[in-house]
């Protein structure tokens, strides 16, 4: 019981809650550029101070979005992995500082993704994806129409809670027939889940057929020039974030190329 509680808690650190803060209202495209910048910079440099700096940059965002507490959950969930990264590097003889730097890099990546998913509405993300030419092109190539991929994404997010309820129903039903999930060694426990997975898969397939019918009835996929009720629009704060991120990105690349000395870390 307590185990599942911890797992749920750690997922909280990546789950979107509808709120209206300045961070939530940022355009997903601007935020995507921000996390890309953090991602690239953290991979370019192994300097502990640069990486700590990147981590600290997130604090005002976490505070402004009011998600500091839930960010702690995601860090707690990543703590085990962070520990493994630290000791593995220490034991392979990289020294304390590099081991620490790599651990901080992991935490930076964890934080930036956690911030993004906690503050970006999947609906907005779908809209943003629908605006990306590459996504539309791939979508048309693979699935025949341009908004298929962005639709798949939002529907997947929409169905997570529904499938969670389905899973609970199947678990309850199988338990009431005497299935014992928490018995035996680790392999045995994994095998215990087979009678859960098969009915769950069937339920999901059946659900998807019904969804497909209902989609037809709503005129999906619709026309090439499908419209939308809401439109994403860049605000001043978005331009500011884009400007800041792209400057940092450009400067980091420049430093990386012409001042390799800074690459040498410690």
């Amino acid at each position: 019981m307590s185990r599942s509680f911890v797992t749920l808690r750690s997922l909280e650190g990546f789950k979107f809650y509808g709120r209206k803060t300045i961070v939530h209202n940022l355009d997903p495209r601007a935020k995507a550029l921000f996390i890309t910048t953090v991602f690239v910079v953290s991979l370019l440099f192994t300097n502990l101070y640069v990486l700590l700096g990147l981590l600290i940059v997130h604090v005002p965002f976490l505070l402004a979005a009011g998600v500091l507490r839930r960010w702690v959950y995601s860090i707690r969930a990543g703590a085990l992995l962070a520990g493994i990264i630290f000791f593995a590097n220490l034991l392979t003889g990289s020294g304390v500082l590099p081991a620490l730097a790599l651990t901080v890099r992991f935490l930076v990546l964890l934080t930036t993704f956690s911030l993004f998913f906690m503050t970006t509405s999947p609906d907005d993300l779908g809209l943003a994806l629908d605006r990306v030419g590459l996504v539309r092109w791939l979508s048309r190539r693979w699935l025949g129409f341009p908004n298929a991929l962005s639709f798949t994404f939002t529907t997947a997010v929409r169905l997570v809670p529904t499938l969670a309820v389905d899973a609970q129903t199947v678990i309850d039903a199988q338990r009431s027939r005497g299935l014992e999930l928490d018995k035996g060694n680790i392999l045995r426990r994994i095998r215990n889940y087979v009678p859960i997975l098969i009915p769950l898969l069937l339920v999901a397939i059946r659900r998807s057929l019904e969804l497909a019918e209902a989609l037809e009835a709503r005129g999906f996929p619709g026309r090439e020039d499908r419209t939308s009720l809401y439109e994403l629009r860049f605000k001043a704060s978005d331009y500011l974030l884009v400007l800041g991120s792209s400057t940092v990105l450009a400067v980091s690349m420049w430093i990386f190329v012409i001042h390799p000395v800074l690459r040498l870390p410690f």
Partner: protein
Amino acid sequence: MDPSKTPKTILEARNLGFQYEGAEARALRGVNFGVERGEFVLLAGPSGCGKTTLCRCLNGLIPHFYPGVQEGEILVDGSNVTSMPTSEVSRKVGYVFQNPENQLFALTVEKDVAFGPENLGLPRSEIRERVDWAMGITGTTELKNLAPYELSGGQQQRVALAGILAMKPSVVVMDEPTSFLDPVTAEEVMKAVDDLRLEHGITVIVVEHRLDLVSRYADRIIVMDSGKVVADGTVQDVLDGQFDQLTGLGVGVPRVSQLWAMLKRDGLVSGQTPKVVEAAAEKLGGKLST
């Protein structure tokens, strides 16, 4: 088209037949009927009698979505459903499915209602107008920022209905829309559908076993068995004339009509079979006071 010359018949099935691919028998055989604009039609019959297949034909899921062999034709507003693309049919015939949860796609109610009009490529102002209208008449405006999983079954079914109405169809087909609902909510949903028909002239076709729920609103009942229409007329006429056939097929006739049939057998009452409790009370009241 000149509105005064708009034909009264909105929907027509002509010698309709269908056999699913790989099935041994035909699911529909020689089905003929016409539905008038603004009519409330109840479609009943035992499981597997072809009700759902018929509904699928009405909105073009057959033959576009389900492969098989179709005979005859279905005309909606004078045009043949079979030769129209489904997106075109969906503007004329709206289909509300049994399980409300499997027809909601967006992450909020408002965006879900907007989903159909968005697919039609309507301008934003028009989408806004339709969404507000559809949420207004289904009583879902207060729910507009909630996610589908935060809604009760009745609310979900209302939102599903709103999503269909936002496409402004002239016919709404509902396949057992109340089977996932409790009796009180089911009653509310049926009442909302009837108001819609009376105020907006939308034609309604409802598949329902439990006649208790709809006999009050329906003008007409079509009863099917083994892919054929076995009864077609006003609810009153069919209850009077083919009562035993209905109960034989396992159609859930209104309980008050059942009571009437029993009393009639014992010679205690006579005359028309009432379809709603109020009518029975009136008739029995007269009997009891004498």
